[in-house]
């Protein structure tokens, strides 16, 4: 589904991604772990199509198509979803409106008619209930005045409404208490299926207790340093990232 080869990118003129290789097949859940500042969010944003991050080499295909040639909005409609590490507050743009416009954009690409207003409302209310969100969030500005945990839930809500083929969740678990973490994990697990893939960028092993990954990658200094199964995450938890860095030198 997603194939990244030797991807390199600059941010503000500085080389951040230094040759990323990753393949994600349909139905798989991948976890990417790594120290702060190693470029995990940069990778996620480059994949989602952020324009001010300059790709300097490599290629990415999504369902066989050249992902890097598509503008951000087109990637989203094709089924790629980025859950932001820092969801943006947009006062004055209504949360419900954003959800509806996003859903309709996707439907339009699939040749479907706009979603019926009543149908949309009942869909969204059911998803909100599932995510333990109060309906009053619908009437508010996008992420406006939301707490950190509310913002993350809102990202998952959007994901559930849009049902992407590939979800990139950038530290959706950070800053959550254990109850919120369980709700987020429940949302992610509900999306798991043979046609969909999920990439979790995370700092901690904690989320992986609830969403079990098929593959775990360690990301450091702009590339994937080591890949393995979920036991790699446990080893990292026990011994820290330095263990890997030392191992590399040795």
């Amino acid at each position, binding site marked *: 589904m997603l194939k990244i080869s030797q991807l390199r990118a600059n941010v503000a003129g500085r080389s951040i991604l230094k040759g990323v290789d990753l393949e994600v097949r349909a139905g798989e859940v991948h976890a990417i772990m790594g120290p702060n500042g190693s470029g995990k969010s940069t990778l996620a944003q480059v994949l*989602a*199509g*952020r*324009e*001010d991050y300059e790709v300097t080499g490599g290629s990415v295909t999504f369902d066989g198509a050249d992902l890097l040639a598509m*503008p*951000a*909005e087109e*990637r*989203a*409609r094709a089924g790629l979803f*980025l859950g*932001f590490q820092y*969801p*943006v507050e*947009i*006062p*004055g*743009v209504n949360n419900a*409106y*954003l959800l*509806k*416009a*996003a859903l309709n*954009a*996707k439907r339009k*690409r699939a040749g479907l008619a706009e979603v019926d207003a009543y149908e949309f409302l009942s869909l969204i209310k059911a998803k909100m209930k599932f995510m333990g969100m109060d309906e009053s969030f619908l009437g508010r*500005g*996008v992420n406006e005045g939301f707490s950190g945990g509310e913002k993350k839930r809102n990202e998952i809500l*959007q994901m559930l409404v*849009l049902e992407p083929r590939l979800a990139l969740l950038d530290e959706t678990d950070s800053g959550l208490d254990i109850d919120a973490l369980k709700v987020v994990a429940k949302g992610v697990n509900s999306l798991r299926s043979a046609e969909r893939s999920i990439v979790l960028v995370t700092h901690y092993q904690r989320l992986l207790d609830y969403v079990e990954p098929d593959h775990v990658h360690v990301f450091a200094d702009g590339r994937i340093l080591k890949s393995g199964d979920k036991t790699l995450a446990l080893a990292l938890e026990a011994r820290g990232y330095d263990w890997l860095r030392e191992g590399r030198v040795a």
Partner: protein
Amino acid sequence: MNTARDKDAALRSFEAAWRARPADRIAATRTDAMQRFLALGLPGARDESWRYTNLRALAGRPFVDAEPAPSARASWLAGFCGSAVEIVNGRPSPAAIESVGDPALSIESLRAAIDRDPASLAARLESIGAAESERWALLNRALFVDGLRVRIAGRATAPLLIVHSAESARDDAAVHSRVIVEVDAGAEATIIEHHLGGSGHATLVNHATQLHLAPGASVDHYRVFSSDDRTTHFDALEVVQAADSRCRQFTVAIGGALVRANLSGRLDAPGAEHDSHALLVGRAARQVDCVNAIVHAASRTTSRQTARALAAGSSRVVFNSRVLVEAGTAGASSNQSCRGLLLSPTAEIDTRPQLEILADDVKCAHGATTGRLDPNMLFYLLSRGIDRAAAQTLLIYAFLDDLLTGMSLPGARRAIEDALIGELPGADLLRSTR
């Protein structure tokens, strides 16, 4: 040839128009105004409040009085208003004045008011146009052909709409008109002035409105400029407020080639409250120049000014607001907030909040920021599959949101939003979404 052009052609033509007018019962005050105007001349680059708007081209063009013309246009603000009076080329329709049925309102044409009560009218007329920045109001006093005098004695049942249309088939027509609104103690009303028209010709509209609020009076006043892109507006609005009176003022500029909108407010007695909102939209080559001056002349007076400026194309939007708190007052409070959004590299927004505080016990705050669309917000919307043009329009709307939701009349807000949508890029996409 350019060099042969008379750089004072406008001034001379105004003088000629004044000489050609038959004398009326306020000839003395008109003569006084004209002589002062001629002595001062048109504002130039050296005049502080005209720094941003260059009138050199206009000054070199002679103007003639716009002829009377038949009623021409429907206002898109009519839907939620009670009575409507149309003023075409400065002349109100007598039938429309007759038809105003609200018992709280009494309306007459300024011509009728001049004949009936010249002394009190002359005194009223003189309160505006004293400042150098109000030279067009001075000229207006000399030259206004007609207009309205509205007295509000109770609680008006529905908004009163005054439609100003400029209709001329030539490129040198000038319209001078005035509206005077007097609000009795405790009375309440909403007045909407809608400036439209232009007929595709380079018309000059020099209008002045005076609002006088007695103690405890409450007025919502809207002035909306949606003329075609060849019309030039000089608009002077004066608000004088007595004790415990309240004025909410909305200035909306979404049309015209040049809109110079002055607002001069005087809070004359304790408890007076003034709240002004300006929505200034520049696009193509339009110039919008909004100049507010609020004077706190008494204790416990409050003023708030909010402006949202939007500039696309090669337009220029200026918001200049000055607050003066006079000596000897206590407990005045003032707040100025101005935000600008630039939509093109060739557009320009200039904001200047100014404070002059001559008293000790005051609470004043001001802020002015201008920027472009936030790339993080834009990326967030794009990453959800929203069309780029729609995302931009959404963010523009978000920028205007608090100003629009602050409008006191839901009907006015909806109508203005609809008109705005037509002015913005990606408009159609947005229409379906609200």
